[in-house]
């Protein structure tokens, strides 16, 4: 097999591969389509969720701002606060503790940290600061003062913004203390950390990962808080060195090798470079249900593939098994064994083929049997000729050498013997003679009692036929001597024959009725051969073998002959010259002349 090209010698393998290939290709395509559609949907879904998450994040912050400013408003109208501010000198410690108790009241929820609450004079001087659970100092309060300046200049009743307080990201709100409205007697500054807890609460509602990072331009570029594990979150810093990605479009980033669909949003800070909010969702997590489905699909596909494999093997076997059986049986039949029919117990095309095959085998067996029998009944050449050609009446004219051989006085001899001995003797003689004739290419036309009629040059024409007939006759004469010696030692009577050979154009072919045919030749030439055989009985000729002039002329290498004279042939105007083989006495008289 050449490398790179698959070739399957066996039909079964080819069929299995083809079926499996088709099924696998189809299942593979379906699987890939499902998989890619799932991924596309997941990204789209995450993208939508990220946008919703971003809005929810903003809404959450707005809610905190509203909550804080609303609380500050209530606070500013509180009598105690006013009473404390009224005191001169200011009792800062009491004021702070009052703010502390407010801070506890203003927890966003049970888990949330209390907000930072500050009180400033109209001149933005810090009066009191509640920093429960917060690491804050007075020097961290600059952002509040910036915001108050902003609000005072624009005559706003509330101002909010985002900033770092003590290094942590906060949402800030400032609200004036009106005493009475619209006279500003001070400013409340409230702040709420945008921290891990805040991120976690957003994650709880949206299932999104939230990370806050400081601006990349800052020397202390860092993760402020994140719902991701610290190592994973840290990789976000490296993602955005410029911090200037197009806002509003999500992108896929790799964190710890895991793909996250990510939406970066800037968070503008007071007097500082904007921080970054990264909203993310792991593609793996989003795809998990789809992947489970894909696994099921994959399982089903593999099962289908296995089933297809089994089916393919079964089908292939169904096809190849009978073929192999037929092929093996063909080999058996080719060796000539027609005894066993092939057994395929099925009704499909293979069953029909097997039946046809059996019929064919039966036909072949029949033909072989016929041929065998024919070979025995007629000579092999005639049998072949009969089998080869369409069996039909009629014949053709051709030149044939006819040899007639007849035993002398056999009728008288057989009367003195019992019939079984006669038949045995005769068969032995005929067998010996027939063998010689056939060896010389002659064809036994028929046995007529103790006489043999043989043809040379028919049914297969042969220019050397006359010579072969002469050679056969000579050997027959010698063989008869040998046979007679055997008979003599056995105490049996000896035999003598005469042979007439004539060459003539005769009609050769199948003769007889439509149901029973004989391949034979007819014509005057046949009669002449028979006549010549009869002439050997005439002691005057003193020869057992007489050939006609036509035969002599046909010989390629004419032998030494002795002309016997002319004989008048019945129905022919001209006399026919006849010859004995060799000089007189060349051959012993074949029989004792009585």
């Amino acid at each position, binding site marked *: 097999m050449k490398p790179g090209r698959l070739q399957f010698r066996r039909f079964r393998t080819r069929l299995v591969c083809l079926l499996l290939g088709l099924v696998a290709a189809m299942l593979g395509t379906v699987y890939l389509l499902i998989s890619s559609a799932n991924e596309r949907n997941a990204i789209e879904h995450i993208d939508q969720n990220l946008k919703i998450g971003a809005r929810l994040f903003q809404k959450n912050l707005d809610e905190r701002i509203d909550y804080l400013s609303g609380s500050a408003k209530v606070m500013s109208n509180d009598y105690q606060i*006013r009473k404390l501010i009224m005191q001169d000198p200011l009792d800062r410690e009491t004021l702070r503790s009052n703010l502390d108790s407010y801070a506890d009241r203003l927890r966003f929820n049970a888990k949330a940290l209390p907000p930072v609450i500050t009180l400033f004079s109209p001149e933005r001087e810090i009066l009191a600061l509640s920093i429960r659970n917060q690491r804050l100092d007075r020097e961290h309060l600059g952002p509040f003062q910036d915001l108050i300046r902003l609000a005072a200049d624009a*005559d706003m009743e509330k101002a909010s913004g985002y900033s770092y307080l003590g290094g942590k990201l906060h949402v800030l709100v400032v609200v004036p203390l009106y*005493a*009475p409205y*619209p006279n500003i007697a001070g400013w409340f500054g409230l702040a709420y950390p945008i921290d891990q807890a805040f991120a976690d609460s957003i994650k709880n509602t949206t299932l999104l990962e939230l990370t806050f990072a400081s601006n990349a331009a800052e020397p202390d570029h860092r993760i402020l808080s994140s719902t991701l594990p610290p190592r994973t979150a840290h990789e976000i810093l490296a993602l955005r060195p410029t911090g200037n990605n197009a806002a509003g479009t999500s992108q896929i980033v790799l964190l710890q090798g895991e793909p996250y669909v990510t939406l970066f949003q800037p968070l503008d800070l007071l007097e500082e470079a904007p921080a970054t909010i990264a909203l993310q969702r792991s593609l793996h997590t989003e795809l998990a249900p789809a992947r489970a489905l894909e696994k099921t699909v994959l399982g089903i596909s593999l099962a289908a593939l296995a089933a297809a494999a089994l089916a393919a093997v079964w089908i292939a076997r169904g096809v190849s098994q009978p073929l192999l059986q037929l092929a093996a049986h063909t080999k058996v039949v080719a060796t000539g064994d027609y005894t066993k029919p092939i057994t395929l117990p099925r009704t499909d095309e293979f069953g029909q083929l097997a039946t046809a095959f059996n019929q064919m085998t039966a036909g072949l067996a029949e033909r072989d049997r016929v041929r065998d029998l024919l070979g025995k009944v007629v000579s092999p050449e005639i049998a072949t000729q009969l089998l080869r050609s369409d069996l039909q009446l009629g014949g053709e004219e051709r030149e044939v050498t006819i040899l007639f051989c007849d035993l002398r006085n056999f009728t008288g001899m057989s009367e003195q013997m019992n019939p079984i001995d006669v038949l045995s003797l005769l068969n032995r003689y005929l067998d010996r003679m027939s063998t010689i004739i056939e060896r010389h290419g002659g064809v036994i036309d028929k046995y007529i009692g103790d006489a043999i009629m043989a043809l040379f040059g028919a049914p297969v024409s042969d220019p050397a036929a006359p010579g072969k007939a002469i050679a056969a006759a000579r050997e027959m004469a010698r063989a008869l001597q040998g046979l007679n010696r055997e008979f003599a030692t056995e105490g049996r009577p000896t035999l003598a024959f005469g042979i007439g050979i004539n060459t003539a154009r005769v009609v050769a072919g199948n003769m007889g009725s439509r149901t029973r045919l004989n391949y034979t030749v007819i014509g005057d030439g046949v009669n002449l051969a028979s006549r010549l055989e009869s002439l050997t009985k005439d002691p005057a000729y003193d020869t057992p073998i007489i050939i006609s002039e036509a035969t002599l002329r046909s010989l390629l290498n004419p032998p030494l002959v002795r002309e016997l004279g002319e004989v008048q042939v019945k129905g022919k105007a001209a006399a026919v010259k006849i010859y004995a083989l060799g000089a007189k006495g060349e051959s012993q008289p074949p029989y004792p002349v009585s």
Partner: protein
Amino acid sequence: MRACLIPLLFAGCLGLTVRAAEGVRIIVRTTLDGKPVADAVVSATPLDHPVPTPGPGNTAEIEQKNQEFSPYVTVIQVGGKVIFPNHDTVQHHIYSLSKPKRFEIPLYQAGASESVVFDRPGIVAIGCNIHDWMVAYIAVVPTPFFAKTDDTGAATLPSLSPGRYRLEIWHPRAAAPVVQEISSAPENATVLEVKVALKPDKRIRRAPTGKGTDY
């Protein structure tokens, strides 16, 4: 901040001379559209001679009626006393967080009357802890020469003896007080027009209650 008159800038000071004998008439208008400004406080502080000490009549009254302070703006000389009679059917709790005078008059019954002495100059905004919409202003000025504009924006100072005066015009909605220097002389013009920039009125609007005031 509009609450303080003391750290005044003498910006845009004009050496105007007014006739002292008949008193000085001042008309206050808005810079934006020239409309007359009511409730503007006009005061003239002598620069060339000592400020006369206030007489026994240095008192004012701010009543509480229909859950409002009346009048809206009151002017007194430093050391003056303001009486707060409650002519209402409900209790009030007057307070001020303004620097010149931080005080409170805790809940007091209708018909009762309380008084407070204002001993430092400046603007005192007063409110009520019970009624957020109640607001009134007391301008405590360091001179007996003061007046408040009427609905036509006009105010007349009492006759001034000749000399230089620091004229100051303040209004609750003024972004900053307007300060001028004037000279008082018998032969000079008597009417002076001053423009002040006013911020939007931000007082709380009460929902109409039927017996409420006209705003």
